[in-house]
C-alpha cells in the first residue's frame, strides 16, 4: 500500500429515519413488516388531488438533530420536488429541500487515536422516503410495497473532511450516538433507519480531486468499512497505472466484498428541482427552537464525565457506557442501587460481551436490570460463585430466564447436600461431641456451616433434616 503518499477524502450523506408515529405528509402509521401497502393512503400513494400536510414532530426532530450537531437553523426553509421516475416513487417526484434546507453549518467532533477532529456538516434537510422494491429472481417482475413511502427522513450531509476509514467509522458512530441520545431516531440499521451514501476520492496532491466514487445505500458499518477499503485501493491502483478517474456511482457486493459500478445514468442525475407548489415555506419560530434547545438531553461526553465523578468508575469504562444512551441509563439505575464499581465491571466485562456475542439490543439488558443488581449483590456476598453468576447472567439476558427460577433449580438439583453434610460433620468434631452430649442447639451451627459450603444455594430446613439423620446414625 502507498497510502501515505495519497490523501483520502470521504464524505457522507446519511438518511436518518425520524422517530415519528405518522408519516411526513399524511396520517399513515410508520411501521415495519406490516402487510404490504396496508399503511398507505391517497397522499402517500400519490393520487391526483391529494395534498401533503407536514408533520410537526418531524420538523421538531429535524430541529433537534440540527441543534445536536451545532448547526444553524434556517428560520424560513422551503420544500422542493426532486423529479425522477422509479416504481418505488408513486408521485414521480420526492418532496425534499433543495436550496434552502432546514439547517446548515454543523460540526461533529470525532476522536481517533486521541486526536480530535471536526467534521463539517454542510446541511441537514427534511425529505420523504420512497417505497420498497423486491425483485423476482426468476421472472421479469418486481413487487412494490409503499408502506415506507412518505416516512420522514433527515438527510445529513458532511463536507469531504474525513480522511480515513477509521475516521469514517468514528463519524458514523458519533452521529448515531448523538441521534439516539436525542431520541431523534432509533438508528436501527437493519430496519433501514440509518442509511448512507458514501463519497470517496483519493488524490495525490492533497487537493480534493474532480473524480469521486459514490457508494449508494449502505446500511452496515462493517460493509461501509469494507467498501471504503476496496474503493480506496482501487483508486490508488488506477492512479498508479495512469488511468483517468471520473465521477461514478457504485453499489457494494456483500458476497465479493467489492464495489461494482452501477449503470451510469447521467440522465437520471438531472432531477429538475423546482419549488413544491403544495407547501408554503416552512417557518420555524425561535420560541420553538429555544424550547427544543432547553430540553436537549445530557450529551455522552458530559455524561461520561459525570459518571466518573459521581460513581467513581474509570474514564475508560464510563466512556464505553455513555456511548449508548439506553445502556447508560440502565447503568445509572443499577449504580444508584448497588456498588457502582462492581456494577460497572459486570456491565463492561459481561453484559456488553453477551450483548455483542448474541447480537442483542441494549434494551434486553433494561428488562433484567433489577435482577442484575440482585445477581451482582449475591456474587459479592459470596452466595454465588463467579461461574454460576456468569451462567445465570447469560440465561437471564439471552434466554429470558428469571433469577428466581435459576436459583430454585440450582438449589434443588445440583447441590449434593448429603456430601456437604458429611464433610461438615467430619470437620467439626467438637460440635458433634456437644450434640451427642445433649446440646442439641449445636445443630444450628452445623446447619450454618452447610449453608456456607453450599454458597447459600441450599434449603436450610432440608440441611437441618439431613444433619439430624446422619447424627442419629452415628
Amino acid at each position: 500500500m502507498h497510502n501515505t503518499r495519497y490523501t483520502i477524502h470521504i464524505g457522507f450523506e446519511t438518511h436518518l429515519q425520524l422517530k415519528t408515529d405518522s408519516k411526513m405528509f399524511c396520517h399513515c402509521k410508520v411501521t415495519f413488516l406490516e402487510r404490504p401497502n396496508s399503511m398507505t393512503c391517497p397522499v402517500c400513494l400519490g393520487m391526483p388531488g391529494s395534498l401533503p400536510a407536514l408533520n410537526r414532530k418531524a420538523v421538531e426532530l429535524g430541529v433537534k438533530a440540527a441543534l445536536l450537531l451545532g448547526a444553524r437553523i434556517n428560520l424560513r426553509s422551503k420544500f422542493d420536488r426532486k423529479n425522477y421516475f422509479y416504481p418505488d416513487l408513486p408521485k414521480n417526484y420526492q418532496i425534499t429541500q433543495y436550496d434552502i434546507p432546514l439547517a446548515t453549518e454543523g460540526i461533529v467532533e470525532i476522536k481517533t487515536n486521541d486526536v480530535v477532529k471536526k467534521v463539517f456538516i454542510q446541511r441537514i434537510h427534511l425529505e420523504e422516503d420512497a417505497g420498497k422494491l423486491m425483485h423476482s429472481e426468476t421472472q421479469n417482475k418486481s413487487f412494490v410495497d409503499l408502506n415506507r413511502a412518505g416516512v420522514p427522513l433527515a438527510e445529513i450531509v458532511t463536507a469531504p473532511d474525513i480522511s480515513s476509514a477509521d475516521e469514517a467509522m468514528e463519524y458514523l458512530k458519533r452521529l448515531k450516538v448523538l441521534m439516539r441520545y436525542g431520541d431523534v431516531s432509533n438508528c436501527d440499521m437493519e430496519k433501514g433507519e440509518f442509511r448512507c451514501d458514501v463519497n470517496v476520492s483519493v488524490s495525490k496532491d492533497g487537493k480534493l480531486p474532480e473524480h469521486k466514487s459514490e457508494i449508494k445505500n449502505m446500511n452496515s458499518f462493517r460493509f461501509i468499512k469494507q467498501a471504503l477499503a476496496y474503493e480506496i485501493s482501487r483508486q490508488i491502483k488506477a492512479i498508479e497505472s495512469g488511468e483517468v478517474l471520473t465521477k461514478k456511482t457504485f453499489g457494494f457486493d456483500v458476497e465479493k466484498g467489492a464495489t461494482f459500478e452501477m449503470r451510469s445514468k447521467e440522465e437520471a442525475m438531472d432531477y429538475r428541482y423546482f419549488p413544491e407548489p403544495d407547501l408554503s415555506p416552512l417557518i420555524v419560530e425561535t420560541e420553538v427552537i429555544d424550547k427544543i434547545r432547553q430540553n436537549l438531553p445530557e450529551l455522552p461526553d458530559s455524561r461520561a464525565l459525570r459518571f466518573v465523578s459521581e460513581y467513581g468508575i474509570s474514564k475508560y469504562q464510563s466512556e464505553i457506557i455513555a456511548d449508548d444512551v439506553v445502556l447508560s441509563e440502565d447503568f445509572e439505575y443499577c449504580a444508584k442501587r448497588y456498588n457502582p464499581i462492581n456494577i460497572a465491571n459486570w456491565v463492561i466485562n459481561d453484559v456488553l460481551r453477551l450483548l455483542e456475542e448474541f447480537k442483542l439490543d441494549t434494551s434486553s439488558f433494561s428488562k433484567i436490570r433489577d435482577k442484575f443488581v440482585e445477581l451482582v449483590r449475591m456474587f459479592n456476598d459470596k452466595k454465588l460463585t463467579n461461574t454460576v453468576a456468569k451462567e445465570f447472567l447469560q440465561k437471564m439476558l439471552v434466554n429470558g430466564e428469571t433469577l428466581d427460577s435459576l436459583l430454585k433449580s440450582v438449589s434443588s438439583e445440583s447441590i449434593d447436600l448429603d456430601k456437604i453434610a458429611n464433610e461438615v460433620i467430619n470437620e467439626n468434631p467438637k460440635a458433634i461431641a456437644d450434640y451427642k452430649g445433649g446440646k442439641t442447639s449445636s445443630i444450628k451451627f452445623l446447619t450454618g456451616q452447610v449453608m456456607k459450603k453450599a454458597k447459600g444455594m441450599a434449603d436450610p430446613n432440608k440441611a437441618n433434616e439431613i444433619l439430624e439423620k446422619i447424627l442419629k446414625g452415628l
Partner: protein
Amino acid sequence: MKNLTPDEIHHIANLARLRFDQNKLTKFSPEFQKILNYIAKLQELNVDKVEPYVWPLEDPLKLREDVSQKLNYAADAVKNAPVKEGDYFIVPRVINE
C-alpha cells in the same frame, strides 16, 4: 434564448418519459422553442432589487400533529393497479445495476 439541439430535446423528452418519432420531433422542436422564448422574456426584467420568492402568499405552512391512523388500505391501494399480485403492485423487473 439559445436554440435547443435535437439531442437536448431528446434528453428532456426522455426525462419526462415522452417518445417522439422523427416527424413529431420536427414539428415539435420549433413549438418547444417558441414556448422557451416566451418564458425567456422574463429574463429581460431587472430583478436585482427583488427578493426571490417561491410562494405568492406569506401565510406560514400549517403543521399537522403527529397522530397516526391505520387505514389498512392494502386492498384499496392496489384495487386499480394494472398488474397486482396479492397486496403488491407489480411492475416490470427494475434493478439499479
